[in-house]
């Protein structure tokens, strides 16, 4: 177990190193002279030279890469070009916002998705199963911006149940007005909901065919107990993996969702940093996302192995 962990962690380390190098190269290739862009019309030769020196742009690329990585290791990501503040001040609040949204989506969606999947899987090829499967297919197929715009049209523009924009007012947190989370969370959950449901359904169908479940049913155990004790634990396993492996993917969904609903999270910040060529911020966010992705995959594997014995036990 320990050896496995060390091996995985070192793999992650190597991957992140590759990623950080790639990000650095990419931002080097990004069009536009950074100093020129920051000074705009005030760009005289002396000012450009001074700013380049201040930003260390006059030093060779590998030196800058090393000093950047050194800073990152110490938790210093540099200053945002656009906001002119340390990135370590800007990002944590955004992370918190996105995390709240993602968790809200999971709490809202996972139980329902699992329940629907179990229900469909226990009785395959019934009307309910067809409904669930169709919903699942449509869920996977609808891009977040379609779902988001449609929800906005129905729940906000027509029914006026929910606020159409999820901006956060000064001095408040997302929890002050949790209603702003509902539509972004529903949108974010759409695709994941479909995955989890389809996976659960497929697994439940499989588990239902295993000898021990059949035996349990034949023994006359109540159906509810069979499902809760034998089917669900086994069917949950892939679900956990899916949630964890899709966490990184959810970050991609956040880019769209947060921009549709004007929610000030990581995704919005990321898109802006790309649009405004805010290179240090972009580097920090990309690395952060790659790390999140790598670690959530690790967690998925660990959870899988940790839960595995229960299969044999059951």
């Amino acid at each position, binding site marked *: 177990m320990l050896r496995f962990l060390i091996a995985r962690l070192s793999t992650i380390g190597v991957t992140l190193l590759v990623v950080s190098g790639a990000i650095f190269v990419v931002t080097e290739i990004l069009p536009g002279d950074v100093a020129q862009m920051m000074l705009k019309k005030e760009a005289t030769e002396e000012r450009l030279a001074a700013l380049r020196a201040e930003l260390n742009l006059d030093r060779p690329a590998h030196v800058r890469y090393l000093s950047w990585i050194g800073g990152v290791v110490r938790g210093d990501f540099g200053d945002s070009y656009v906001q002119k503040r340390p990135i370590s001040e800007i990002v944590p609040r955004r992370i918190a916002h996105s995390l709240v949204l993602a968790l809200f989506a999971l709490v809202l969606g996972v139980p329902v998705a699992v329940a629907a999947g179990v229900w469909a899987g226990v009785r395959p090829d019934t009307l309910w199963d067809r409904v669930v499967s169709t919903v699942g297919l449509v869920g996977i197929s609808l891009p977040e911006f379609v779902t988001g715009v449609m929800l906005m049209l129905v729940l906000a523009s027509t029914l006026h149940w929910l606020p159409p924009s999820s901006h956060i007012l000064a001095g408040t947190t997302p929890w002050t007005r949790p209603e702003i989370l509902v539509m972004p969370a529903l949108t974010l959950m759409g695709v994941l909901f479909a995955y989890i449901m389809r996976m659960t359904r497929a697994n439940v169908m499989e588990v239902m065919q295993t000898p021990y479940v059949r035996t349990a049913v034949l023994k006359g155990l109540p159906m509810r107990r069979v499902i809760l004790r034998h089917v669900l634990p086994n069917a949950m396993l892939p679900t956990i993996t899916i949630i964890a492996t899709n966490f990184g993917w959810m970050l991609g969904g956040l880019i769209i969702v947060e921009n549709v609903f004007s929610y000030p999270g990581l995704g919005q910040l990321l898109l802006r940093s790309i649009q405004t060529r805010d290179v240090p911020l972009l580097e920090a966010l990309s690395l952060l996302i790659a790390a999140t992705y*790598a670690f959530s995959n690790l967690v998925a594997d660990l959870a899988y192995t940790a839960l595995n014995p229960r299969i044999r036990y059951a």
Partner: protein
Amino acid sequence: MGALALVVQRIANALRLVLRTPSGRIGLPILLVHFILATIGPWLAPYSATEFQQPLVETQLQPPSWEFLFGTDQFGRDILSRVMSGATTLIAVSVSGAALGIALGAAIGMSSGYRGGRIDEIVMRVMDGLMSFPSLLLALLVMAMLGNRPAPIEALQSNWQNILIVITIGVVTLPRVARVIRSVTLSLKTLEFVQSARLRGEGSAYIIFREILPNTLPVLGVEASVRLSYAILTISSLGFLGLGVQPPSPDWGLMLAQSRQFLGHAPWVAMAPAGAIASLVVGVNLVSDGVKQASGLPQEATT
């Protein structure tokens, strides 16, 4: 040539099998309609996709009617015609992007898996690195990196934006395909027929193309259908975020983005492009389900 004929025959067989599955029976016709629209849609469309219907005062933001089945937009353009014309570029670009990624990914996956050793190790780390970004983020990064640059050759200029998107989709698709094909290759490598080919003294190129490639086809088919649906989603997301095609192209994502300001009093502007994207991806996903069922591979959700 022989290999190509084999591939074509395999694909024809596969399609027949797919059509036998329930998902395939619904999905293939949907896809067919979209592909027909993509090829002849612009000619079938009742109006031009970009032309304003004059006078603007009377044609601006008209609700659906017999004259304009899906209504008109802010510029008095027929939304039905725009949706019909939008399929061409989207499908052409997403199919080429996915194809590029699959071809490169399969080539890298097969050779890396077959060669093994240090190179394989390095290649796979790079693929892991690429895969640690959500595909949309990776696409945004590639677009930002390549965008705002003139085409290297004058002749490409008019289509440059589309070529950029194809490259972007290729880059996003590549690592996921490479990974899957590599693992298939690893298991094929140990099988008898590959070993005997090697003992016969065949070169690696021959073995990869004649022995391994044909046997990865079922997996490749599944991958192709899944990757195509992701390509469509990613491209229309880019359009929605304003990083893809430029107005006044009848791009569905862009149309939907621009329709948002009329949600309150002209919701029909949003309906048609939303429906078009949804039905296309539903079609692709149904076919993808069908392919999985027909191929007999486990029906895992792949991401």
